[in-house]
C-alpha cells in the first residue's frame, strides 16, 4: 500500500510551512536585535556563533529549560491554550500564500479571506491569554488589543476590498499574476485604477503594523506602561510561543503586502520572476517594520484610534469610492 501522492504533498507542505514559520520567528528575533543594534550604533548579538547567528537557538534553549510556572489564581487551561491559539492560526495562514508561481501549499479562490479569517482568531488567543492570566496589566492590554484590532480592521479591509475590485479576484495567485511585468504594473503604482494607490499602500502598511501590534502601535505590550501586557505572566516557552506567533503574524503581513501591492514574486523589471523576489520583498518590508520600531516612540491609545477613525478610514473609503467610480468610467 503506497502513500497517496496528494497526501505526501499536503504533509510536505505542512512541514515546510511550519518550518518556514518557526525559522522566521527565530531568525526575525535575530534580525530585530541585529538591526536595532546597528541603528543604535552597537553590534547586537555576536557571541553565539558567527555574527551571533546561533543566538536564536541559545535563546530557544534557554526558554525551553525555564520552568513553566502557572501562577496562582489563573485559569490553567486557558493559560496554556492561549499561546497555541496565537501560533496555530498564524501558521495556518501560510497555507494559501503563493511564494512563487508553483510554490504554494494550497491555492484556493478565496485565499485572501483565509488570511483575514485566521488573523481574527489571533485576537481571541491574546484575549484568552490575557484574561486567563488574571493580571490587571494583561487585562488592560486585552482591552486595548480588541479596540485596536477592530479599529484597524476596517481601513485594512476597505483597502483590500478596493484592491479586490481592481484585480477582480480574491485568489492570491491571480492577484500576483495581474501585476505581471515590471514594477509599473504593481498595484502600488497602478495609478490608472486609482491615483491614491501609493497612499492606500501606506494605509495598508499602517494597518498591518497595528494589527500585528508592532511599534509604534504596540499598545498590547507597551513595556513602559503595561510591563509586557498580555504576556506579563507568561514564563519560558509560553512567552516564546506567543512571541513566535507575533513574528509569524508579521511575516504574514509582509507576505500580504508583497502579494497585494508589490507584485509578489514578480521581478521589478519583468525578468526572472521567482521565489527569490518574493523573499527579497518580504524581508525588505520586515526590515522596514523593525526599522520603524526602533525609530519612533509609541503612540497613545486614543491617538491611535483617532488616527484610524479620523484619517485612515475616511481616506480609505474615499479611495474605495474613487476606485469604483474610475472602474465604472474607464
Amino acid at each position, binding site marked *: 500500500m503506497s502513500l497517496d501522492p496528494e497526501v505526501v504533498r499536503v504533509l510536505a507542505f505542512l512541514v515546510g510551512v511550519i518550518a518556514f514559520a518557526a525559522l522566521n520567528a527565530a531568525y526575525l528575533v535575530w534580525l530585530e536585535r541585529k538591526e*536595532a543594534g546597528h*541603528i*543604535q*550604533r*552597537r553590534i547586537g548579538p555576536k557571541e553565539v556563533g558567527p555574527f551571533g547567528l546561533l543566538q536564536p537557538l541559545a535563546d530557544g534553549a534557554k526558554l525551553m529549560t525555564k520552568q513553566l510556572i502557572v501562577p496562582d489564581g489563573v485559569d490553567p487551561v486557558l493559560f496554556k491554550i492561549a499561546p497555541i491559539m496565537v501560533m496555530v492560526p498564524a501558521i495556518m495562514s501560510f497555507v494559501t500564500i503563493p511564494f512563487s508561481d508553483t510554490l504554494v501549499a494550497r491555492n484556493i479562490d478565496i485565499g485572501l479571506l483565509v488570511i483575514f479569517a485566521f488573523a481574527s482568531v489571533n485576537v481571541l488567543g491574546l484575549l484568552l491569554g490575557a484574561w486567563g492570566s488574571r493580571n*490587571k*496589566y494583561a487585562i*488592560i492590554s486585552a*482591552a486595548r488589543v480588541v479596540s485596536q484590532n477592530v479599529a484597524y480592521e476596517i481601513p485594512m479591509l476597505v483597502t483590500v476590498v478596493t484592491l479586490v475590485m481592481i484585480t477582480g479576484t480574491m485568489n492570491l495567485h491571480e492577484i500576483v499574476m495581474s501585476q505581471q511585468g515590471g514594477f509599473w504594473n504593481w498595484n502600488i503604482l497602478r495609478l490608472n485604477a486609482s491615483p491614491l494607490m501609493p497612499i492606500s499602500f501606506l494605509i495598508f502598511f499602517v494597518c498591518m503594523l497595528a494589527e500585528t501590534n508592532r*511599534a*509604534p502601535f*504596540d499598545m498590547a505590550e*507597551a*513595556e*513602559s*506602561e503595561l*510591563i509586557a501586557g498580555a504576556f506579563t505572566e507568561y514564563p519560558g516557552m509560553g512567552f516564546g510561543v506567543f512571541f513566535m506567533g507575533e513574528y509569524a503574524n508579521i511575516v504574514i503581513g509582509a507576505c500580504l503586502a508583497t502579494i497585494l501591492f508589490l507584485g509578489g514574486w514578480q521581478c521589478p523589471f519583468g525578468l526572472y520572476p521567482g521565489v527569490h523576489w518574493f523573499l527579497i520583498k518580504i524581508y525588505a518590508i520586515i526590515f522596514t517594520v523593525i526599522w520603524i520600531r*526602533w*525609530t*519612533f*516612540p*509609541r*503612540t*497613545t*491609545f*486614543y*491617538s491611535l484610534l483617532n488616527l484610524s477613525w479620523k484619517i485612515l478610514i475616511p481616506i480609505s473609503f474615499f479611495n474605495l469610492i474613487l476606485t469604483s467610480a474610475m472602474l465604472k468610467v474607464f
Partner: protein
Amino acid sequence: MSAFAQSQTNETFVLNLGPQHPATHGVLRVKLVMDGEYVVEAEPVLGYIHRMHEKMGENRTWAQFLPNTGRMDYLHALAFNHGYVTAVERAAGIEVAERAEYIRVITNELNRISSHLLWFGAFVLDLGGFSPLLYAFDDREHILDLLESVTGSRLTYCYYRFGGVYNDIDDGFLAGTTAFIKRLRDRMPMYHNLVTKNIIMMKRLEGIGPVSAEMCRKYGATGPVARGSGIDFDLRKHEPYSVYSEFDFEVPVYTECDSMARYMVRMDEIEQSMRIIEQAVAKLPDGPFMTPKVSKIVKPPKGDYYNAVETARGSFGIRLVSDGTNTPYRLKLRSPTFSNLSLFGEASRGMLLPDALALMGSLDLVIPEIDR
C-alpha cells in the same frame, strides 16, 4: 485613603505601578486607583531606598559627608556636591579660589548636560522610543569620560572641597570640553528632528499633563517643572551663587504648562549650559584651585544656615545647624524631586495611564534623591 476604600465597590480597581516597573526608573511605587485606563487617584509610595543621609551627616565630620552628597542625585552629583560645599563655605565663611569657582561651573554644567541627556533618553524610552536613549548615552559617555579624567570617577563624583576643588583641570580637559560642545551642537538638530518634531512625540506631549504655576507654587515645585509652567525661577540667575552672575545665559521658560514645555525647557537648558561652559572656558583664570589657608578641620560657628543651588531637577537646599563642633548638628537636605513628585497625585487625576506616565517622566525623577 478614601478612594482606595471605595475601589472595592465601585468600577475602579487598584493598579500597583512598581516598585519594579519599567517606567518608574528605580524603586518608586505608585498606587493608582484606575477607572478603566483613567487614573482616578495616584499615590506615590516612597522610601524603598531610603538611606537616612541626614542622620549619617550628624555622625561624621563636615568633610566626611562629602561623598554622601554625590549619592543622592547620582545623575547630577556635582550639583549636590556644590550645594553642600557652598553651604558649608557660607556657614564657615570660607573663601573660594576664583579658578576653583570656574572649574566648578564648568564641571557642574557638564554634569547638568549629562543629566539632561540621560533624562532625554529615559523620557523617550518611557514613551516607547528606544534609539534616542542610546544616542543620548553616546553623547553622555563623552561627558563621563571628561569628568572621569578630572575627578577619577564616572558617576558619584566627590570633587569639590571646601574652598576649592580636589584637583586642577588640565588643557586636555579643556580641549576635550570644547570639542565635546562642538560635537553636541552638531547633534542637537538631530535630536530635534528625530524626537522633538516627531508627530507622535508632539501628540503625546502637547497639552498633556498640565501643571499650573499655582500648583507649582503650592507644592514647591522648582527647576524645569516650574519653568515649564511659566515661572522664571532659576537660582543661578535668581540668587546667583558661585560665579554664575558673570556669564551671559538665559533661563528658558515656557508658559504652556504641559509635558512638551518641560521637555523643551530641558532641551534649551542643554544649549544654555553649553553657552556657560564656553564662556567659563574662555574666562578661566589662572591661580590656585584651592584656597590655601583653609584648615582641614572645618568648624562653622554656631547658628543655622540655608543654602540652595540649582540642580538639573530644581533647587536643592541645605539647611545646616551648627553647634560649633566639627560635626553637623543637623543637616536638612531639601531635594527638588521630592517636591516635584508630590504634585503628581493631583496633576495626574483624570489622566489616561500612558499620559500619566508621560507626566511622570517629564518630572524627571531620580529616586535616591527623593528617598535620600
